[in-house]
């Protein structure tokens, strides 16, 4: 099992969700986050005051999936979240030791 963490542009969320559902992903977690990478921040102007906003709003997706789906999901994520402009985000993949479905007590890939 793998944990896929994807940080993407907020307005891409719906498109990504649809694409993932289409390839059989059955669940994911979403949170609104702020951060910066190479894109760095942007400037906002309020009357005379200019502020550099260092932390840019992003959406973070977390999915725990069976090993055999990882490649397909990575490909789908990359293709749908991409705009080609700086700030499209990053994807990380981590090993997952165990998963349990609370209602039934099923464990491992059965629980996903």
């Amino acid at each position, binding site marked *: 099992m793998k944990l896929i963490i994807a940080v993407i542009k907020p307005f891409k969320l719906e498109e990504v969700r649809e694409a993932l559902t289409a390839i059989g992903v059955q669940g994911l977690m979403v949170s609104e986050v702020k951060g910066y990478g190479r894109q760095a921040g942007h400037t*906002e*102007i*309020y*009357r*005379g005051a200019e*502020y*550099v*906003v260092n932390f840019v709003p992003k959406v973070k997706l977390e999915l725990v999936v069976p090993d055999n789906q990882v490649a397909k999901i990575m490909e789908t994520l990359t293709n749908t979240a991409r705009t080609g402009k700086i700030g499209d985000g990053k994807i990380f993949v981590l090993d997952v030791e165990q998963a349990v479905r609370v209602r039934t007590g099923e464990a491992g890939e059965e629980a996903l």
Partner: protein
Amino acid sequence: MRYLSKLAAPVAALAASPAFAQAAPTVDKGDTAFMLIATVLVLMMTIPGLALFYGGLVRSKNMLSVLTQVFAIVSITCVIWVTYGYSLTFSDGGSMNSYIGGLSKAFLRGVDYNSIAATFSNGVYIPEYVYICFQMTFACITPALIVGAFAERVKFSSLIFFCAMWVTFVYFPIAHMVWWWGGPDTLAAGATALAAAGTDQVAIDAANAMIFANGKIFNWGALDFAGGTVVHINAGIAGLVGCLVIGKRIGHGKEAMPPHSLVMTMIGASLLWVGWFGFNAGSNLESNGITALAMINTFVATAGAAVAWLFIEWLLKGKPSLLGMVTGAVAGLVAVTPASGFAGPMGAMVLGAVASVVCFFFCSTVKNRFGYDDSLDVFGVHCVGGIIGALATGILVNTALGGAGIPDYLSQPGTLQVAPYVFSVAFMAQVKAVLFTLLWSGVGSFILFKLADLIFGLRPTPDVEREGLDLAEHGERAYAL
């Protein structure tokens, strides 16, 4: 607020005028109904209008502090107003009458529901209670305007003390000096007495005393229809002094301090615009053609100013911003305030646009150059806009420019005439009024801020300021999400 009579009218002209017969005072139900509504519109400008306009511009941790300050100032000023404020502003001050009224109407002594107050037409009156309430809302909004200059970094106790002192020693005297007069019928009676006096020096002196028993700035011939000097310059310069005395916010210029809700600010600005019809049109005290003039001016000056800021910011900064546009609208409202019943609509529209551009320059360039932390641009919008409006009133009142003309109650007692316009006289009266107000409020505010600092301490501790005034000073938060 007041129509200024041409006080220097030649005595010769008076001698030739027909004798003035005092008309029986009447209270018109239409005027009264209009003034009742105008009064609550002005209250709506302050709460929630001004409170939301300011509140949206601060960080969310200080939202409630601004709302609390504005609401508290309104309530406290109401109490002070009926206790001694109205009397100090709108009663005869005896030997001090040039500067301040007396205490003869303290606790509203002698006023009941039959009492009447003068308007700007001979023989036309409104119930004094309405006049007291209408003027009360002006006294309430003026100190509330000041808090924007040092928002997010003032101790509540200190601010309340300052505002109570400020209305007493700065607002009431200035309002008295600009707006206190005997009314049209007193001037008519004085002019008639002067004409009848012949060469009798005692009678001439008595008649002159009656004509000139007004506030100092009124007697200079300065025009201020709805409070350019009394409200906006007065509060604007106090704000500048306050932000200099209190100092910058922690992190000013280093940390981002963006407005937490421009939605609130837009709602607030819109309520200000709507309420401002009560402020400007209501300042005519009657419901007539001049009231309509003040209304159309309050529309077009504001629109002209909003458009001007929108485009100049788009041009110079690259983007047309909502905050810029609504700030421009407020600048236009401020500028048209003293001119609203004197200028013509086209003059008012140009005035709004010019004031907007100058205020833009002050808020975006001058403030950054000098580095003062006028958090919500009280000086840049209210003082600067107020000065432009006050000076322009002396120009736009000219009938040749579409203005209503300088009112003259003296040359034909009992009627309202238009006095001949002389630029140097009209303009210099405005300049004197502006400089006097800047000086009086600037010095007075400085002393009162220092006094408040001495007694209570103006600034909260750095920890409190960092945590936000809402939780630290008021024990509550604006948004529990």
